[in-house]
């Protein structure tokens, strides 16, 4: 009886060790790889404390600042702050209106970003850029992954041809 009691303890300890290992793996990997979503304003507010961390920043593309060298694939542009919360965006009249406001408002915070890679077709004035990367010492956002959304592309599709009957 005693022996089987010991056997049970052995298995419980073994199970707990595995659980601890899994928790450690999750915690340390989350710590090392979590990507924080931020708006341009939040990024400005945090400043140097987030330099080098993985971030995901969204902003409105300022068309006049887009510069692209097709030889080196160096791409740079500026984005203006847009709210990060969908409810807030809806309250301000939808994504298209929010992006338009952000671009024409001269008082908005701007963020300069650089990226190396082919220029996406959707990169244009008043597009929403969702950028994964990190803030450099130079205050420029270095983008590893660039996603673009144009509000018109995401409108609910309804049929065009109407043939009332």
């Amino acid at each position, binding site marked *: 009886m005693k022996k089987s009691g010991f056997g049970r303890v052995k298995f419980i300890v073994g199970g707990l060790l595995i659980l601890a290992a899994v928790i450690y793996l999750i915690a340390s990997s989350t710590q090392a790889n979590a990507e924080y979503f931020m708006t341009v304003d939040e990024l400005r507010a945090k400043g140097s404390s987030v330099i080098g961390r993985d971030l*995901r920043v969204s902003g409105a593309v300022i068309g006049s600042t887009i510069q692209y060298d097709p030889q080196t694939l160096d791409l740079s542009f500026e984005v203006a702050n847009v709210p990060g919360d969908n409810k807030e965006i809806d309250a301000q009249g939808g994504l298209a209106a929010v992006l338009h406001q952000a671009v024409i408002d001269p008082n908005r915070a701007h963020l300069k970003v650089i990226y190396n890679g082919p220029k996406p077709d959707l990169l244009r004035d008043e597009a929403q850029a969702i950028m994964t990367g990190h803030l450099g010492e130079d205050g420029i956002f270095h983008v590893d992954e660039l996603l673009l959304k144009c509000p018109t592309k995401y409108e609910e599709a309804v049929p065009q041809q109407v043939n009332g009957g």
Partner: protein
Amino acid sequence: MIADFGYGVIVVTFLLALFSVGAAVYGALAKSYRWAESARRAMLLTFPLVTIASFTLIYLLATGHYELEYVYSVTSNSMPMYLKITALWGGQAGSLLFWSWLMSAFASAVTLRKWERDREFLPWVIVVSSVTLAFFLALTIFFEDPFARWWQTASGEVAAMFRPAGAVPLMPSDGQGLNPLLRHPGMIIHPPMLYLGFVSFVIPYAFAMAALITGRTDDRWIRITRRWTLVAWLFLSLGLVLGARWAYDVLGWGGYWGWDPVEIAAFMPWLTGTAFLHSVMIQEKRGMLKQWNMLLIILTYDLVIFGTFLTRSGVLSSVHAFAQSAIGPLFFAFIGLTLVSSVSLLVYRWNDLKAEVEMKSMLSREALFLLNNLLFMGVLIVCFWGVIFPLISELVTNQKVTVGPPFYERATAPLFGALMLLMGIAPLSAWGHSTFKTLGRAVWKPALVAALVVVAIFVAGIHNAVALIGFGLVALVIFVTLYEFWRGAMARHRRTGENFVTALWRLAGRNRRRYGGYLIHISMVLMAIGILGMQVFQTETQGTIPQGGSLALAGYTVTFDSVAQFDTAGGRNVTRAVVSVYKGDQYLGDFHPRRDYYYESGQPMTIPGVRSTLADDLYVILVDWQPISAIGATFKVYHNSLVNWLWIGSLVFIFGTLVAAWPEKVTSGG
């Protein structure tokens, strides 16, 4: 009219499924054979009915009835007929109907089996199948109706089944068409495979519940569903592999698996299902882990429902869309309800499910199987955490955060490594009792050969730690498995005097489950070779080159010859580049990476030019081009080492699973 007919058939089937639930419960409780039989007949009738509804929808899809919202959203005039038909599962509403179709087919197949010895299970298996079927039919009827039509109202266009007040029907002359990314042979069979896997896991769950309700908690339910479970697992695995292959062929990012939440949603039931396949063997052989097996099949069932929801609803593009979709809360309610009731039943029968013998040795076969299960659960927890962490973080700290592939890779790699180590050791350990000494005696020979392989790889110039450990484990599993085949065949050869090949053949034939399982182990490590190759050795380069210019990567040279743009059938504009590829000075041939632009949906699709060998793939993507200027075109080139082993492993995997699932020649009463 036809749409009304289809909708009516679904409503009738739904009522029939509800009737069969009621009749089966009454039949079981009142011990009335007539009511149970009535439930069975109702269940059998659902299959032809859902078949009629599905064919109705297929007919509407094939004949371009764009006044239906679903038909409008997934088909168009320019699509070929086979795509119009397979658009049945091209969108959410259709795939829910498809799910119901498969569910009714499997439930009918099960109710047709011989039930003499298992009479008491029948009504409860019908209850679980019919409740699941009724749930999916209800979603189709009330929320995601594939037969809903377009109407023009004063305030705009709406989709509804019945005419809103003052509305006139809309009759579009063409549809939007299926998302071009989905117009790929891999994508046409990938969803049905995944769904076959999902739905067939409902059957073992139904039997598990029947066992809990009736109190017949021996391993009978496991023996009945063993083959079902293997086939379900085969389909689910095929679905995952086909999805990976599709991503590699058409998504144009040089990879095959992105730890996307949708992928993870399909991967999670695979993890619990794989753990279940292993641990049921312990229950059959040793009468242990009964409660655990119940828990695993309950989890698998609910992860299947969860996976169906996530893979098709599209909610994952934004977690906030949950609130906007009416079917989200319903899915969660259904999952919650089934989870709570199943676990309550399990707790109720907890004492009946006590192990018959106690696990003694930490190195016994059953202990290593348990460890294998815990590791699979570990991977599951990592995946689950990755999916829900953004939600938790936002709720608790109001900080939006996400985790990407590096999180999953880092957290799961040690667990997968440990699983491979177990694959190497467990087949050599003994049931009941094993010590370091006995196990060491069996393992040292293959382990030594594996160590020599690691040394050889190191000497050959590969010093990456992950690669060395990974390939060492691959070698260990391969040698142990071959050693097992050899040992078994030699023993038979000595005993029966058959020649070695005959002995090997008969050995595997008599013990299909075991040797099929070993083949699956081999297939897994072959896949691991491909995954390691991609993870550790993948390199890439990109650049804009003029005509005649070149890009160099890993000893290959890619020279840009020309680019042409033209329209083709199916409403596509194709931009196709010609590049010639050299390895050193040797000319390997022309690649044709291209970009197809679909006019009606406005979506591009990138198709790489690939040269595939056992050692590596060269994968060239056309990214951008300037037709007139002298700048030329932009290419991205990947060098994907060993990736072919992933697909070769998949083929071995199918073979191994078929061997394991093939009915034994001699059927003992078991």
